[in-house]
């Protein structure tokens, strides 16, 4: 142990959206805040998507899977028993650094799954309770979009900026949807379309998922951290937290972290907030076991790490005769559809999925051989034919289908894998259930019809993209301490000054990208801490 920093009012573990929102809000309220981030600051100039080497680096340095990136900041994830790979990024700004920038809200029914569909559980809060926070974070992040989507309740506010262009791919897709009479809407995205704060307007480079070289995609290192730091918050990078510590009264009193030199430090604090994502947070709680909490900190319910939801992702791609310039961005969600989002049990499953349109992307991204196609289909003269058919002339519907919580899908500690600091790695067990499999099949059938209606000459189904983009549910919120880890304000039932603000607290996953909801919850819960600060118990 080599050092102990000054005691802070709040220590936050993780600098992604929830950590950044909490830090900014708490610092602006006058609280002293220290954030520990195991990664580093990432400068926009490092993103190479607009350079010839961009695709090579996308396959490694900027890959979504930490097991492939193998960066100093990353910890390995044992996914040998998981049907999908984890997606995350460790650095200031968190996984938004590599996210697609899709910015949908959950729908009202997503908060009442048990009531409406008889499965899983209801959330302890409603859509309406989150609306004011959804609106505020849209302003804070600089969201572009178009109000009026009939898949959502009427909204009183417009988006801060007009929507992104949908390009030739989008126009082809919506003509197909129009023929079928199916819902579509223009994407709401965390992408600036005008100069906005510290964000530049989008230039349609199309590499949102490997970092935006234009500085147009909203990430917390740009949108939040400068303000938080201006109000006194500190970010310590290269700091890997290995334990949350308790005092004799059972209150969290700080954390132990390891710096890049391997030296241990203690950061004392009155409040501890975990913002380390749906894998990192349960890992840390399980690592922080003690005599008082032999099964992991804040785990009297036994639910820490359980109910992991990762949003298995399927897709259907189509090729077209016309030149769609399909390498152009935005990549993630220039058009989406909620046509089959709400439950209809006559389909043979409950719950639903959002579709988001993605362009066919650059030459390597659509290379069949590199995707594992048989030799004669991926290489040789066929490679050239594939490129002619797919490059610039393809697009797809990505299908984000809802995972229902299953206690057997979980994060535990690996018995035989450690990170570079010899801390046990998280181990995933994740299986896509039958309901989700049926849902995926149904949606792929419909997406195929949609692409054919748009004029696709060929379509290819991708039942399993391997990517588990969203890490949710592993420290769920609820009113009953026996069936949840935190209350509806993100506060641990067991440790009254320990909070969780990341996606771990989701009760169900919905079928949309979760970052807007994670962010809205973080803002709501941070405000609650400020409002209740005089009543808040904290370690002296």
């Amino acid at each position: 142990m080599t050092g102990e920093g000054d005691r802070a009012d709040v220590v936050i573990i993780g600098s992604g959206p929830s950590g950044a929102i909490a830090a900014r809000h708490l610092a602006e309220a006058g609280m002293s805040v220290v954030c520990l981030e195991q990664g580093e600051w990432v400068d926009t100039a490092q993103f190479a998507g607009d350079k010839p080497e961009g695709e090579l680096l996308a396959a490694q340095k900027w890959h979504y899977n930490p097991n492939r990136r193998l960066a100093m900041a990353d910890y390995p994830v044992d996914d040998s028993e998981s049907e999908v790979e984890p997606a995350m990024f460790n650095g200031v700004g968190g996984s938004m650094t590599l996210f697609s920038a899709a910015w949908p809200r959950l729908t009202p029914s997503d908060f009442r799954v048990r009531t409406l569909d008889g499965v899983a559980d209801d959330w302890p809060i409603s859509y309406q309770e989150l609306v004011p926070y959804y609106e505020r974070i849209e302003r804070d992040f600089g969201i572009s979009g178009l109000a009026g989507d009939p898949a959502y309740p009427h909204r009183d506010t417009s988006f801060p900026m007009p929507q992104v262009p949908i390009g030739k791919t989008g126009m082809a897709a919506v003509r197909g949807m129009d023929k079928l009479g199916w819902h579509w809407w223009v994407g709401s995205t965390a992408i600036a379309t005008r100069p906005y704060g510290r964000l530049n307007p989008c230039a349609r480079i199309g590499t949102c998922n490997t970092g935006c070289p234009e500085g147009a995609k909203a990430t917390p290192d740009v949108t939040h951290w400068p303000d938080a730091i201006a109000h006194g918050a500190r970010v310590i990078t290269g700091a890997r937290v290995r334990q949350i510590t308790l005092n004799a009264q059972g209150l969290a009193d700080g954390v132990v972290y390891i710096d890049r030199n391997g030296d241990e430090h203690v950061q004392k604090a009155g409040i501890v907030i975990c913002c380390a994502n749906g894998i990192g947070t349960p890992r840390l709680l399980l690592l922080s076991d003690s005599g008082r909490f032999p099964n992991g900190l804040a785990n009297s319910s036994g639910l820490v790490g359980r109910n992991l939801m990762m949003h298995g992702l399927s897709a259907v791609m189509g090729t077209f005769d016309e030149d769609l310039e399909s390498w152009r961005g935005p990549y993630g969600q220039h058009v989406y559809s909620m046509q089959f989002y709400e439950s209809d049990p006559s389909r043979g499953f409950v719950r639903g999925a959002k579709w988001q349109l993605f362009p066919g992307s650059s030459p390597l991204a659509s290379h069949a051989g590199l995707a594992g196609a048989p030799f004669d289909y991926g290489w040789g003269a066929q490679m050239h034919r594939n490129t002619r058919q797919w490059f610039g002339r393809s697009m797809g519907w990505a299908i984000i289908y809802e995972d229902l919580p299953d206690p057997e899908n979980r994060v535990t500690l690996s018995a035989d894998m450690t990170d570079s600091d010899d801390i046990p790695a998280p181990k995933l067990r994740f299986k896509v259930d039958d309901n989700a499999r049926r849902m995926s099949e149904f949606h792929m059938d419909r997406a195929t019809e949609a692409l054919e209606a748009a004029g696709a000459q060929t379509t290819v189904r991708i039942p399993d993209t391997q990517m588990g983009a969203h890490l949710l549910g592993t420290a769920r919120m609820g009113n009953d301490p026996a069936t949840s880890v935190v209350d509806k304000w993100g506060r641990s039932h067991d440790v009254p000054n320990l909070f969780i603000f990341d996606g771990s607290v989701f009760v169900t996953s919905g079928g949309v990208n979760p970052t807007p909801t994670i962010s809205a919850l973080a803002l709501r819960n941070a405000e609650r801490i400020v409002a209740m600060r005089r009543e808040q118990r904290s370690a002296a």
Partner: protein
Amino acid sequence: MSAGLDASQQAVLDALADILAPEAEGMPSASQVGIATRLLDQVLNFRPDLREPLMYVLRTARDREPKAYLLELERDDPATFLALGLIVAGGYYMSPDVRERIGYPGQDRQYFDADAVPPYESAGLLDHVRNRGPIWRDPDDTAVLAEARSRQT
């Protein structure tokens, strides 16, 4: 010498790469665009992690018939095969000549006027969606709740 390869190693890589990316369909072969020289330098500069599998391939492919070797590698060591594939395809599509032939300017910038009327609005396509009305379920609506209860009983 390029990327530390001698002439014989370059010849081995050229032979393998030309099976993966041959001269065909109006496109040049990998060797013709410099896969074992200038492009390899670029690839390994950005992906030094690919050097080790490349050197393994160059050691084990010497004196082998290229296509038979590649098929065997794909079957027995898919990770190394994919690493070689990434070197070849990654380098190939970095070639300015190849990019020009497939009509790829790279991920270039295209600025736009965010306030311009989008083509789907001027075509009235979004009005069709609006006119079909709301499609979300209101969990506080008594009719929605009654339907949900009836489904579950």
